[in-house]
């Protein structure tokens, strides 16, 4: 498991479009945006309109916080100070199980894995976990591998 993230060096600033998302994370709920008119789901919540039907009044969908790793990178050289002690760490793109839509549209989210690189592979199932930060308003969702899968791919170089 990578060393902790130094959240004292990170200040998250929720805004008009994202405040409810961060408030939900504080209650250990993982939300994506959902259109009340056509049902389309998307992430991140900074986008205030439905890209499928144009509705300007997006709602929310509470996901189960489970998905499959679609891709990942392993950060070795830190750029953000809060992560200097955390390297190497894995950031993954995760395809959420309960956000697949007819027609193939997918909702993918990103986040920092709790697992070290050798445990991570494309195709593995994973689930969200919640981490307290230095800021009582901000609880940070992270992800961990939650099982095995038949067809996985791992970067071996």
């Amino acid at each position, binding site marked *: 498991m990578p060393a902790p993230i130094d959240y004292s060096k990170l200040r998250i600033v929720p805004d008009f479009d994202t405040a409810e998302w961060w408030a939900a994370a504080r209650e250990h709920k993982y939300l994506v945006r959902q259109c009340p008119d056509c049902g389309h789901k998307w992430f991140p919540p900074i986008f205030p309109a439905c890209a499928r039907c144009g509705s300007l009044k997006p709602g929310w969908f509470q996901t189960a916080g489970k998905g499959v790793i679609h*891709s990942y990178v*392993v950060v070795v050289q830190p750029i953000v100070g809060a992560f200097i002690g955390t390297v190497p760490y894995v*950031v993954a793109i995760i395809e959420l199980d309960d956000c697949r839509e007819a027609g193939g549209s997918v909702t993918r989210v990103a986040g920092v894995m709790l697992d070290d690189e050798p445990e991570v592979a494309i195709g593995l199932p994973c689930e969200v976990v919640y981490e307290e930060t230095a800021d009582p308003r901000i609880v940070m969702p992270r992800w961990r591998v939650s099982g095995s899968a038949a067809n996985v791919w791992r970067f071996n170089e």
Partner: protein
Amino acid sequence: MGSLTDKYCIVGVGETPHMRPSNRTTLSMACEAVSKAVADAGLKLSDIDGMTSYQIGDSTTSPHVATALGMRLNYAVDILGGGSSGEALVAHAIGLIEAGYCKTMVIFRSMNGRSGRRMGGQTPGGPVPVAVAEGDGQFNMGWGWTTPAQRFGMSAMRYLRDTGCTTKAFAEIAVAHRYHASLNPKAIHRNPIAIEDHQRSRWIVKPFRLLDCCQETDVSVAIVVTSRERAFDLRHPPVFIMGGYARTLTDSPQWNYSRDEIHYVAGNYGWKRAFGMAGISHKDVDFVSCYDAFTFTTLIQLEANGFCRKGEAGEFVKGGRLRIDRELPSNLSGGHLSEGYTHGVQMVIENVRQLRHRADDACPGWAEGRHTYDRKAGCRQLRKADICCGMGWGWENMASCLILRGIAA
């Protein structure tokens, strides 16, 4: 053919040295690059009546440059944008001149890309001490996932998985572009490298190593665009703009990761327009420039723009195919990987010089177009340089292209 094909030309190019650091303002560098480009065209500053530039909140503006250089402009607009914007602004220039808003236009980019604002939020001294994550940053900075290397790495990793390509293909690009830089006195890194040097270099963010990444640079670059009629009487044989596309986007452009294939990049949507406008096919192209913020961005753009089939770019670049005197020379100045990082325009500059047959290499007679073609003696001029395809990259989701032809062979 598109009705504007060959009606507009690039007639002047200029740049400041690639420095780290420049110890200069972006205004100072821009004035030098603009002056040099105008002089290169054989024009006076008073002949220029349009100016445009692109930036990401890190640079001076056209009105500043016009004030400093005593130019009275009929058109001055600066846009927000990074890579792929230079080629797009050439398209703006064509439209503006065609419509009569101005006659001759200079396009510049000026950036202290190493000593000033760095990509990904890093400070000149290194990691950003306390990060404020606002707007988009809430959903990337909070995850330590900000830089282009960290972001493009996602599509690169998935590409490796989907195609069976390995990072040896990345190495081919690093090696070819470095070889070209070894023939370029202006380049930051000129020592040739081998595949093994790339494979042994340290990890930055897997799947990218140090030698997959470009050289952050302090530099300014400028080009002059005008109509064919004016171009004929200027200093150099004109370089004709045959076709292109301008900041073409994929769907979901600001969240690439929800697209079906995250490595199906924007060039896929653009190349038919560019080649159709130009009235040529890929086999007519003598050389390319291909935005190499990273080795992978060159690799994926060759595929996206139809130079090889989908999933086959790794095979395509094998064995030095992108090197000078080989099948498809790429980034003859050394590109962002080795010459220096200018958000794209330096590649347009190199392409123009190649098409004029006046690459500024070690040949004593380069300025008169006399080249030895002896690579060991430092000549980097192509023997046959009639048509070039320049591919610009913003992110996976944004791309531009400029197909140019010269008449100076």
